[in-house]
């Protein structure tokens, strides 16, 4: 039966029916795993922004070069070549970004469901993980 209030217990079933915790050691391990998931979530948030920044620097020069070259370029082949290659480059960056976004959404929901177990230890694990993740990952944003 679903609990509707927070409680301290070393018994919980998390997310999957094989993740059945009924000992102190198991609970410690579960809190640790949930913490890792939450740190990962925060890391992916920052990682997505970093990826967008990098994609801009990786793709932008080729676009500006194209724009500069376009009025001068008379040959059809030379203008088609770089366009498709830069499109491919952009597409691969965008795919990586999309993948990160999907993982972020999925992890976010997983963490939400873990909190919904109303187990206080798990909840504290999520809070601690979020704090650690933010503390560690956010300064990495400014790293070039």
């Amino acid at each position, binding site marked *: *039966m679903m609990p509707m209030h927070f409680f301290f217990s070393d018994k919980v*079933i*998390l997310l999957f*029916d094989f993740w059945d915790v009924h000992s102190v050691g198991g609970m410690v391990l579960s809190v640790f795993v949930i913490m890792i998931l939450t740190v990962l979530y925060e890391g992916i948030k920052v990682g997505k922004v970093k990826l967008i920044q990098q994609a801009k620097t990786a793709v932008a020069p080729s676009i500006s070069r194209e724009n500069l070259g376009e009025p001068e370029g008379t040959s059809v082949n030379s203008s088609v070549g770089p366009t498709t290659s830069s499109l491919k480059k952009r597409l691969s960056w965008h795919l990586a*970004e999309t993948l990160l976004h999907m993982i972020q959404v*999925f992890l976010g*929901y997983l963490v939400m469901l873990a909190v919904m177990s109303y187990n206080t230890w798990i909840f504290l694990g999520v809070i601690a993980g979020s704090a650690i993740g933010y503390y560690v990952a956010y300064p990495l944003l400014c790293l070039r």
Partner: protein
Amino acid sequence: MAHAEHHEAHMAHMGHNMTDSTSPTMDPHAHHHATTPGHMHGGMMEMTFHFSYHNVPLLFSGLVINTAGEMAGAFVAIFFLAMFYEGLKIARESLLRKSQVSIRYNSMPVPGQNGTVLMETHKTVGQQMLSFPHLFQTILHIVQVVVSYFLMLIFMTYNAYLCIAVALGAGAGYFFFSWKKAVVVDITEHCH
């Protein structure tokens, strides 16, 4: 009532015949519990991920998935709902940016006659609240909040098909709608 129906469906699904249930060694109920721990049971909430398309309630009281076809329909619908959500988020962002740009543009200091500087169309808070872009943003915000809660509640069913639909929809929406944004819009600098 719902339970009896469900049980029958379950028996048919598992390929049992009715004689099985009369044998004393094989309590159909216990068997049922043992084989399908991830099944919905008389409206009780599931607490772990499971693949199933029998008796899956979906948000509203009349909306219960009972067949594979209905699950496929729900999958597609939820996929597009999640896609719509991503699109809405990105659309709101770009709309907000556009209206902010126009406000900044409108409130440029304009040199007036005899050397005075006029602030053109500097709106008050009340005027900003009543402005069309803000009202539109508010309506879109309501839609976004409702849809995001729907998606959360769908994920909370722990039904793996529906969860996958939400994740894939979010991915597809992000892929298609942020494609344009990546080029046009400048990313706000996080480090100053």
